[in-house]
């Protein structure tokens, strides 16, 4: 478990909740700041004192006020940390649940966890801290699909071709032969069957005929 954690959060109520959670987890050194610029300075100082932070919990958006900030958003802070302390573990704790943002943060800045604020937020946060301490990635349930493979809604050319051949009245075996002729892979009967089953589920079809009808009705073939 972590021993030295920095929390960047500008809302006092949330800060209190986070603090309680961290204390419950038995973390000894908890620093809380309300501006990214302060966090940046603290991290730098800790590095210089040779007592670096092990975990950063940060919000993404901060209310702007009279203080002019060099790093106005959590993203800016996370970005700059990549250069000054690349090994620092980062958990983003934000109300933002756009998948794109999550994906960008994970892919570009290698954040370790993304926790959405909400009713389950604090529970998720403690789960995330556990996971990160064990070098695992954690995403809140409602943004988990950001990195999911299934999140791609696109139906492939292969699937379209498969249903098309089916609509012509070809059996799976005949489609297999046809695919092999046309050098469309995979062409084996077993993989064709697998794909068909997947499509049936996707289109909520009871059998092959039902699938063809539905796909035709939807104008895909």
């Amino acid at each position, binding site marked *: 478990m972590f021993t030295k954690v920095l929390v960047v959060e500008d809302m006092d109520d949330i800060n209190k909740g986070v603090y309680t959670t961290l204390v419950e987890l038995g973390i000894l050194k908890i620093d809380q700041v309300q501006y990214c610029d302060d966090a940046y300075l603290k991290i730098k100082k800790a590095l210089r004192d040779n007592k670096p932070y092990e975990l950063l919990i940060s919000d993404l958006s901060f209310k702007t006020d009279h203080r002019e900030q060099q790093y106005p958003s959590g993203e800016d802070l996370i970005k700059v940390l990549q250069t000054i302390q690349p090994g620092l573990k980062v958990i983003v704790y934000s109300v933002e649940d*756009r998948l794109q943002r999550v994906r960008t943060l994970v892919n570009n800045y290698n954040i370790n966890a993304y926790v959405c604020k909400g009713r389950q937020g604090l529970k998720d946060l403690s789960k995330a801290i556990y996971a990160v301490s064990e070098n695992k990635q954690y995403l809140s349930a409602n943004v988990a699909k950001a990195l999911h493979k299934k*999140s791609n*809604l696109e*139906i492939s050319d292969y699937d379209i071709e498969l249903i098309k051949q089916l609509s012509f009245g070809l059996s799976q075996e005949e489609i297999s032969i046809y695919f092999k002729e046309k050098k469309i892979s995979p062409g084996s009967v077993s993989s064709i069957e697998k794909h068909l089953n997947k499509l049936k589920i996707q289109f909520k079809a009871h059998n092959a005929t039902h699938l063809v009808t539905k796909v035709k009705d939807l104008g*895909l073939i």
Partner: protein
Amino acid sequence: MRKFIFFIPLFLFLHVFFPCIQNSYAQQKIDSSFYYYYLVDNPEKSTDLTSAFIFYNNNKEYSLLNGDSLSAIYDLRQIAIIQKKIGFLNESENSAVEALKLIDMLKGNDSVKREAKIGLYNHLGKIYRELELYDKALEYYNKILEIAQTPSQITTVLNNIAFVFYEQKKYDIAVNRFTKVYENSLLLNDKKQLARALDNLGLAQSKLNHPNALSNIIKGLKIRKEISYTYGIITSYLNLAEYYKDRKDKTKALYFAKKALEIANISNNIEQKESVLSIIVGLSENPEVIAFKKITDSISKAKLIQKNHYASMIYDLTNETKRANENKLSKEKEKRLRLLYQGIGALILLSSIFLYVILKSKHKKEKIQQVYATETRISKKVHDEVANDIYHAMTKLQRSTSIKEDILDDLERVYTKTRDISKENSTIDFKEDFASTLNDLLLSYKNDSVTVITRNLTKINWNNISQLKKTAIYRVLQELMTNMKKHSKANISVLAFSKEKNNIIINYKDDGVGCDLKKKSGLQNAENRILSVNGTIIFESKSNSGFKATIKI
């Protein structure tokens, strides 16, 4: 010494006036007109010219009063002739100038104007020659050449021009010119003109001692005798007298001069008689007579020259004034035209500014209306979806003593809804790949009961699409998906993307219950968005056969 020269006989434009005068007074006038016309041509008594002058002058005043400038012009011409005959050369010039002015003011009938002008120009030419203002005479003769039309007129004018050179003692040029006039006359088949040409040519040649001089003069005399042209015969005799006088043969000269006098006595034309006698006196050898004649000639000439300039200058001056007035008038016109153009320009400018302001304010109004519409939409949503739920939670709280789990659930639902509203209206992140932005949007509508499938979304090149169009597509798809989720009870919704030329086509279709297309505000909103970026959107739906939309952008 006086020269006998053939001028153009006055152009008879009496005939021009006769047809239009029909009453009895006019009849009387015609009779007297003929009488006086003859009198001017052949004055016998010393009072003849004076009485003719009085007649024409009265006539002129009368014509001017009645606005009959045509007959006034004729009267003035006759007056000019009379004045010249009496010897009032500058008065004669004055009258001719006055007549020319009247012609200038006359409108229409170009041929009558031309004839009158030729006569007057010729008259003026004659006067200037007598005043030895040869350049001015030539100027007027050339004016005639500009407007003359018949060959006979042209030949006569050319003859007069040749005579100007003769009078200036430029005999070479004169002979040249007369030869041409002679050649022209041969073509004309007019014996009078031919005789005149021969006579004049001979006279000019005699000054150069040309061998044909005498024979040409005699030929001319012969033709004139043939046609019994008294005036011409007298001239021919006088020219013969001149010929011999030049050759110091006074006997022969006197012989021909006396022959001329004989004929002049018969015709009893005082004017001619005076001319002939003047020549006979010139041939006299009596030194006192010669001296007397010399003095009288030079005195009368000097007097005439002195008087002359005045009239001609007046005419030039009035012409100048007239031109100045015309210039002023055209300037005035130009000014008015310029003013008109400026007015039109100003009007166009003003109206375009006006139009611009109107359009701008209209645009502004539309913008404001759009903002209002958005505000209304959001506030309605907050009221319908959030406020009601909060109220519901509040009433629950009032009833129960302790905070229960289900109240927390209610509150969470409210929280989610507010987040959704915020998300719906938040800005779209264009920094990311638009295909994945759209994918995420569509993904958020996917759940256990609804499958969302896209086709070729990733194959579209979104980089060339403007941000405005992307925003429109994003919002419209959002609207369609929200609609689908709320009302359609659909299990599957498909979005097929394709490209056609420069347009992106998006086909939306679901297997829901459909709806009657009484354009709900959501769909209307979607349509407005697409139209605002010059796209089209077509909705198709029948109940129980799904909902379909085709977007072309």
